Every structure is written in C-alpha cells, then in structure tokens.
C-alpha cells in the first residue's frame, strides 16, 4: 500500500468531514432571514465601503523576506539529509550560503524593512 494512495484517502476524508458536517448543519440548523442579519459585523453603525482595498505595505515586505528564507529552507533540507556524507566540505559551502543570506537579512534590517511603522 503506497503512501500516496493513503494521502489521497486522507484528503478525501478531510473533504468528507467538512462536507458532511456542513450538510448536517444545513439540515438541522434553523433558518431565518432578516436584512440586518446579512450585514458585516462591525461596531453597530452601517459599514462604510468595501474591505477589499489596498493594504499597508509592511505585510508585503515581510512576505518577500519570507519567500527568500523559505526557499533557503527548501534548499538546505537536502544538505541536512546528506550532511554526514558531505562532511566538512559541505559544511563550508553551506556556511557561505548562510552568511550571504545573513547579509541579506542585515541589509533588510538596516534599511528598516523589519521596522513596523
């Protein structure tokens, strides 16, 4: 029995769990309509405009930084697995890789990308 097949089974299980629970809830739950019920929950006065708008740039900077370091994690995992076979040479190569990334982090830090304004 392969792992991938079991993974598919688990995926279907998750779909079934959510779908079945939603169906049961729709069947059991009471339903009543009211124009005010469909309003979004804010402080009580009618909401102004939509919430699908431009958002502050700080989140975007963190997302870019995350991308860099997450790809780094992806690249380092294969090295971590065969670390023993590669020995000191591999460690020195990875050390340079990590130092370059650390310089990138230091640059972002210095430029104020990590500061929450």
């Amino acid at each position, binding site marked *: *029995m392969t*792992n991938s*097949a*079991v*993974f598919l*089974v*688990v*995926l279907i*299980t*998750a*779909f*079934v*769990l*959510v779908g079945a*629970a*939603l169906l*049961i*809830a*729709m069947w059991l*739950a*009471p*339903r*009543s309509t009211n124009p005010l*019920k*469909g*309003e*979004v*929950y*804010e402080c009580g006065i009618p909401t102004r405009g*939509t*919430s*699908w708008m431009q*958002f502050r740039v700080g*989140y975007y900077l*963190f*997302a870019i*930084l*995350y991308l860099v*370091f*997450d790809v780094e*994690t992806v690249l*380092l*995992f294969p090295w*971590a*697995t*065969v*670390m*023993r076979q590669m*020995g000191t040479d591999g*460690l020195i190569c*990875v*050390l340079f890789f*990590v130092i370059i*990334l*650390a310089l990138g*982090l230091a640059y972002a*830090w210095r430029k104020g990308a*990590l*500061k*929450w304004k």
Partner: protein
Amino acid sequence: MWSFSELTEWIDATLRSLMGDGWALFVEFVLIGVAVLVAYAVLALILIWVERKVCGFFQCRLGPNRVGKWGIFQSVADMIKILLKELIRINRSDKVLFRMASFFVIIGSICTFAAIPFAKGLQAIDFNVGVFYVLAVSSLGVVGILLAGWSSNSKYSMIGAMRSGAQLISYEISSGLSLMAIVVLSGSMQLSEIVAQQADTWFIFKGHIPAFIAFVIYLIAGHAETNRGPFDMPEAESELTSGYHTEYSGIQFGFFYLAEYLNMFIIAAVATTMFLGGWQPLHIAGWDGFNAVMDYIPSFVWFFGKTFFCVFLALWVRWTFPRLRIDQLLNLEWKVLMPICLVNLILMAIVVIL
C-alpha cells in the same frame, strides 16, 4: 514491545481471505479514513475539554463541571449545540471562498495529523520526506485563514487575516530551521526512521545544547503558528472581536476552532516525535533493569504522555503571559529567533561532524 503492525497485518490477512485483493484494499482505505476521522474528532473533544479545565484551574475556578463527571461530556454537548446553530450568510461576502476557507483549514490539519507516528506501527502516512511533508501541508492552513479574512468583506476579518498571515509565515521559518537541526543530527527526513534512531537516547539528549535550543525555539514558533497564547494577535478580542473568523457562525466557526486545537496537538506531537523520542520509552545507557521496566509501558502511552506534556506547556504559556503587540511579535521572530536558528543549525552541523 507490542506493535500495532500485528493488528493491521491481521486485518489485512482477514480481509484478503474474505474477498478479492481489490475489494480488500478498498475496505482498508475506508478503514483508514474512518480511523483518522474518529481519532481526529475524539482528540479535538478531549483537547477542548482539557484546555477549558486547565484554564479553569489556572484561574482558580473549577472549569466545566456540570455535564457528566468533571464535565467530561461538556465538549460533546458543545459540538451538538454548534451543529444546531444557524449558518449566517453575509450579503456582500464572496460566497464560494467563504465556504472554501474552512475546507483549507481542516485539510491542512488533518493531512498533517495522519503523518504522525502515534505508536509502534501506527502511522497512516510515512513518506521518506516526512519532515518536509509536515511543514508543507501544515502551512496550507494559512491559505484558509487568508481566504476567510478576505472573503468575509469585513474590516475586522481582513485585519485579523493579514496579521495572522504575517505571523504564520514568519514563524514558519523558525519552525522549519529548528526541525532542520534534527534532520542534520539524524540524517533522515522519514518520521518513522527518526523515531527508530531514538531508541537508545532521545534526540534532545543526544544532540547536546543545539538540540535543546532547537526544541525551545520549535515550541515557541509552533505556539505562534497556532495563533494562541501570547501570540494571539490575529484574534485579539479586545480590538478585533475575533479576527479572521468574526463573520463565521455555527459549524463553520467550529471548523476553525477544531483546527486550532488540533494544530496545537500536532505541534506538540511533532515536537515529541522529533525531539522527545516519539513513542520510544525513556532509556538510560547502562541501566538495564530500568530500561526493561520502561519497555513494559505500551508505546502509545509514551507518545500521548509526552505529547500532552507539551500541550500542557502550551496551555501554561497561554494562560500566563499577556498578549504581545504585532511589532514585538515580528521583532521576536526576525531579529531574535531566526538569527539564533541559523547559528544553531551551523552549531549542530559542527557537533555532528566532530
């Protein structure tokens, strides 16, 4: 030590003697699905009860104590109640994405849940890139959270989802790097292999100081990834009512609640598997009698004992510390935890090579 693979092999043999191979495989798949589902639901009920009870004791009150002895059926009653609640539709929301969000959140946590080795021979998915798989699938939850916040078309939800997204992706780096330290130590990414290597000594003892640092960082980062405790910025109820699931009601809110508790369990279980030896009993080199006695305790008792210890740590932290601000939260990750993680990784590599 008794292995669950005996039970599964017996089921396999019985099914194959009763019907054709194809049908036997089908029935086994259905059994796996049902087992994962039941374990998931029962653990969720237990965790919610444990959380409420522990929280009660931390605040010098009794917690739930009306439904059943010590209130043990409280979460069952809550589950039935939540199924009976109305699903409110928001007029201006994106209806399809609004529904899809809860699917993503549950899929992310249930697929991770299936990869955990619960006891000897009891593991549904055992990829040879298990650690990678766990990191990849568990981060599906952030997609669900962002979708939930965006599709609700509510300001509270939007701000909560954005904060949650920033926090989850930031802390994912730390948790990935701290798990990588253990991959360096073990030389394998397969979870069953990692557990098997800890038969004589757990990795937290075998890995000297770097393993301990990685363990602590993993607990902190994992705690932040579940949006709980001092890191519950996204749903800071005093400013955002309840963050990304403000607009959800009934069972749809229940899914987020369920996933939050199960994610807490999964973080604790992964920490147990990677650092505290999974289902392996405590062995001390040279103490043969002690080791033999420890072997008598069943493997799932070891696993759940260690996991619930980690869960208790998470609850303790949650009910002890005040909430952080969002800038403090991101500073902690990018300026403290991640540099420590990078240095720790190199340190671990040096320890292994020497």
